C-alpha cells in the first residue's frame, strides 16, 4: 500500500512527495501555514508559505522570518503536488489547505467555522476525498447562537454596565476573537480601550479590515478616562494587577467553552458569552457533508468521540490523529501573545521543543 498523501509525524502533518509540512509544531525547512495563531504558526521554520493576509500577522508575531504570500485559490506546485489555500472563516487570514496529487484530493482545515463573522473571509467547503478536520467542539452539546444575537447580548450587557457606572472588561484572544468583538461592539456611547497585545494586533489588521477606533491603555491612561467604557484584554490578563485601573468593573469571557455552567463558574467571571471561532456540532457535520469526502481524519478536540460518530452514524472512514494543536483552549493562558510587543524572542522559542510556545 502506498503512503498516504499527508502523514502525521512527530514534526507535524507531512506531505512526502512535496517534502513540505502543514502547520508543523517543530522547526522544518518549508512550512505551509493555515493561520496566525501560535499553535499553528510556530517559530523556527526556514520558509513560511501562507495566504497574503497572514503575512503581516505572522511577521508581527514572529518578527524577521522568511515568508511569502499566496492568494486564495492560487495553485502552488511543488514536485507535482498541487497546493492551494481556501478561506476557513476562523479568523482574518485563516485558510484551509487543499492538496492534490495524482488525482487524489486532501483538505486540511486548520481551524474553521461556518458562520460568517464579518471580519474573516467566509468559509468555503472544498470537495475532497480525505478531509482532515479539527473538532474542538465536536460534541452535540455545542450549538452556537447566531453572532447577531450574541453581540446583542454583549452590547446590552455593556450598556447596562455603563448605566451602572461600571467598566466592562471583555476577555478574548488577542488575535481573532478580540477583533470580532471590536468590529461589532456598539460604540455610540462607549469607547473601546485595549490591552497592548490586543491593541497592536488590531492595528496590524486595520490594513485589511475597518474597525471602530480603539485606544491603547498605557501608563498615562487615567482611571477617569476608562471608567464606564469597554476594555478588551487577553484571558491571561484576568486577575492581574493591570485590572486595578478599571475599578469598578465587571468581567466577561467570550468563548465556546462558556456553554458549560461548570466552565463559567470555574472561570470566576461575572458573565460568559458563548462565542466561538470554531464550528459547533452542526457546523462540523454540515461541513463534512459538503466536502463529499469518503475519509475523515479528526484532530484536536473530542477527536475520538467524533470519529466514532462519523464511522457509526455517517458510514465514513473516520480515524482520529493526535496533533499538538490546541483549538480554543479551555485554559486561560494558552495561545496568547501577551508580551508588550507581541514578538517571541528567539531564545524563548527556538529550542525546537514541542511545548506550546506562548509565553
Amino acid at each position, binding site marked *: 500500500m502506498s503512503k498516504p498523501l499527508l502523514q502525521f509525524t512527530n514534526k507535524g502533518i507531512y506531505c512526502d512527495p512535496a517534502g513540505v509540512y502543514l502547520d508543523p509544531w517543530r522547526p522544518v525547512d518549508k512550512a505551509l501555514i493555515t493561520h496566525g495563531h501560535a499553535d499553528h504558526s510556530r517559530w523556527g521554520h526556514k520558509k513560511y508559505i501562507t495566504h497574503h493576509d497572514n503575512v503581516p500577522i505572522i511577521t508581527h508575531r514572529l518578527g524577521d522570518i522568511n515568508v511569502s504570500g499566496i492568494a486564495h485559490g492560487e495553485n502552488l506546485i511543488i514536485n507535482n503536488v498541487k497546493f492551494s489555500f481556501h478561506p476557513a472563516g476562523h479568523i482574518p487570514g485563516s485558510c484551509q489547505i487543499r492538496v492534490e496529487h495524482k488525482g487524489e484530493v486532501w483538505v486540511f482545515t486548520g481551524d474553521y467555522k461556518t458562520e460568517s463573522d464579518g471580519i474573516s473571509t467566509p468559509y468555503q467547503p472544498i470537495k475532497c476525498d480525505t478531509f482532515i478536520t479539527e473538532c474542538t467542539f465536536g460534541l*452535540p452539546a455545542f450549538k452556537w447562537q447566531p453572532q447577531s444575537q450574541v453581540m446583542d447580548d454583549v452590547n446590552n450587557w455593556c450598556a447596562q454596565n455603563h448605566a451602572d457606572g461600571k467598566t466592562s472588561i471583555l476577555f478574548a484572544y488577542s488575535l481573532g476573537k478580540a477583533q470580532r468583538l471590536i468590529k461589532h461592539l456598539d460604540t455610540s456611547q462607549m469607547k473601546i480601550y485595549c490591552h497592548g497585545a490586543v491593541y497592536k494586533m488590531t492595528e496590524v489588521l486595520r490594513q485589511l479590515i475597518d474597525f471602530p477606533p480603539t485606544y491603547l491603555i498605557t501608563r498615562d491612561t487615567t482611571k477617569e478616562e476608562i471608567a464606564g467604557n469597554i476594555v478588551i484584554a487577553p484571558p491571561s490578563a484576568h486577575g492581574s494587577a493591570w485590572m486595578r485601573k478599571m475599578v469598578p468593573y465587571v468581567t466577561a469571557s467570550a468563548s465556546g467553552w462558556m456553554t*458549560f455552567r*461548570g466552565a463559567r*463558574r470555574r472561570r470566576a467571571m*461575572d458573565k460568559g458569552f458563548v462565542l466561538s471561532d470554531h464550528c459547533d456540532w452542526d457546523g462540523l457535520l454540515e461541513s463534512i457533508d459538503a466536502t463529499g469526502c469518503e475519509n475523515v481524519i479528526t484532530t484536536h478536540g473530542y477527536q475520538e468521540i467524533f470519529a466514532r460518530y462519523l464511522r457509526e452514524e455517517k458510514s465514513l472512514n473516520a480515524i482520529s490523529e493526535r496533533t499538538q494543536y490546541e483549538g480554543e483552549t479551555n485554559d486561560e493562558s494558552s495561545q496568547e501573545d501577551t508580551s508588550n510587543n507581541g514578538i517571541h524572542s528567539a531564545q524563548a522559542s527556538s529550542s525546537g521543543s514541542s511545548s506550546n510556545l506562548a509565553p
Partner: protein
Amino acid sequence: MKQFANLIRTIDGTNKTTLKVEALADYFKTAPDQDKLWTIAILSHRRPKRPVNTTLMREWATDISGIPMWLFEESYHIVGDLAETIALILPTINESSDKSLTTIIQELIELRKKDEIEKKAYLQENWLKLNYYERFCFNKIMTGGFRIGVSQKLMTRALSQATGIDKDILAHKLMGSWTGENTSFQELIYEDNEVAMRGKPYPFYLAYAIENEVEDLGNVTTWSAEHKWDGIRSQTIIRSDELFVWSRGEELVTDKYPEFQAFLGKIPNGTVIDGEILPYKNGEILNFNDLQKRIGRKTIGKKLLEDVPVIIMAYDLLEWQGKDIRNKPFQERRALLEQLLMDLNQRKGGINSAQTSTSSSSSLPIMLSETMTFDSWNDMAVERSLSRKRKSEGLMLKRKDSPYLVGRKKGDWWKWKVDPLTIDAVLTYAMRGHGRRSNLFTDYTFGLWQDGELVTFAKAYSGLTDAEFKKIDAWIKKNTLERFGPVRSVTPHHVFEIAFEGIAPSKRHKSGVATRFPRIVRWRLDKPMEEANTLDDLKALIPKDGS
C-alpha cells in the same frame, strides 16, 4: 417558570454572594406566594418525588436529538450534569413557557400516576416549549439535588431581607418535614401553627474548627470540653406523646431507630435533646462502619437491631417543659440535662450504663456525653490525644455561658479534632468531576503497595488547588492507560499524601480497610512512586482493641 429560570440564571451568572442574595430577595418580594414556597422547597432539597427515572429521561432526550445513546453518555461525562446535558443536546428553540413554576411542579406530581407513554409525551412536548434555562430548571427539578451555589443560610438571609423576619426565626420555621404540597407560603413563614411546629427541630448549632492556637481562646476554665463522638448528630424531640428524631441533614429518621420509642412515657413531653446517635453494645462504642449498616436500610431487621444497637449520647438540652431554652447559658442547659438523665436513672430500670446492655428492656438507650473542665490547655491537649482510643474524633469546646446559636457560627463553640492520620499513596484511576469541576479529572482513586502491586484503598476529590487540578488533569489526559466509561486508569506515577479521620477493618473493601473522610493533603512531587506506603503500613494504623 420564566421568573424562576431568570432567578437561577442570575444566581448562576455570578459568584458574588451579595448579588445572589439580592436576586433571591427580589424574587421573594415579587413572585407569587405559591412559587416562592416551591422555590424554598427546591432550594432546601424538598423537591417532589421524581415522576420519571433518569434512564428514561436520557432515552427520551436522545430520541428527539437524534443522537446515539453512547454519544449522550460521552457528552454527559464531559458536561458533568445530567439536567444540563439534556438541556444542551435538545434542539435549540427560542420559545419560552408561560406556565408558572407551581403549574409545572403540579404537573410533574400528577405525572407520577400516569403511564410511560403519557410521561414520554409530556416530557418531550415540554422540552420543546422551554428555552435553555427553563429546560435546565425543569430537568433539575426532576433529577434532584438543586445545587447551584445557594446554601440554606444564603436563602434564609434573602428571605429575611424580603419579609423583614429575623433570619434565626426563619431558619427554625424552615426546618422539619414540610413540603410544597402540605403547606402554603403564608402558613410556613407567617403563621405560628402549633400542629406544624410540633415535630419541627431547632436549627442545629454547628462549630468551626479551631484555626490558630488553642491558647488563643483565653482562660481555659471558661470552657467546657467534651468528646466529639463519631456518629450521627441528631435532635430528639418528645412532644405531645410523640417522638421525632432528626438527623443534622434535616432528615426525619425516627423509624430507623425504633429503640428510641422507649423514651415515650419516660422523658416528659416538651423535651428536645441534642445528641449523637452512636452504635453501642456491651458497654462499648462500636465503629462508625457498624452504624453505616443501619443508615442505608429502609427496614431494620431484628438481627441488625441486635448486632448494632444504638444509643443517644446526649450533648445539650434545647427545650424543657415545652419552653425553648436555647438562650440560657450552656451550663444551665447542661445542669437541666444532667438532672433529667439522673431522674431517668433513678426511676425503675434506669438509663444505660457501661455495665448493662442496651438490649435489656429495663434501660433507656441514652447516655450523657461527659463534660470536662481543665486547669490548663496542656491537660486538655492530653485528653485530646486520647480521642482515638476513646473512639471520638477529638474535642468540642463550648464556652460555659454560650447560648445555643443557629447554624455554623464562630466564637462560642469550636471543634478541636485530632490531627488526621496520613499516608502516601499512588494515583491509579481518575474520573471527571461534577459542577464547577465538570470536564476536569478531579476525582481520584489511590492505591498502596502490596507484593509489588497497587491495591486500591481510597477515593478522594478534595484538597488540591484549582491550579493543581488543572495540571493533574492535563497529565491524566496524556497518561491514560484504559477507559472505563467516565473512569480512566492512568500510568502509576504520582504520589499524594492522603489524610483521613478514622480507620477500621472492613470486609467490604478490597484492601480490607475502611478510612473515614479521606482527602488529599498534598501532591508529593518529591516522592517517587516506589516510596509510597504499603497496605501493611496502613493496617498498622488501625487502633488495637483494649490498648
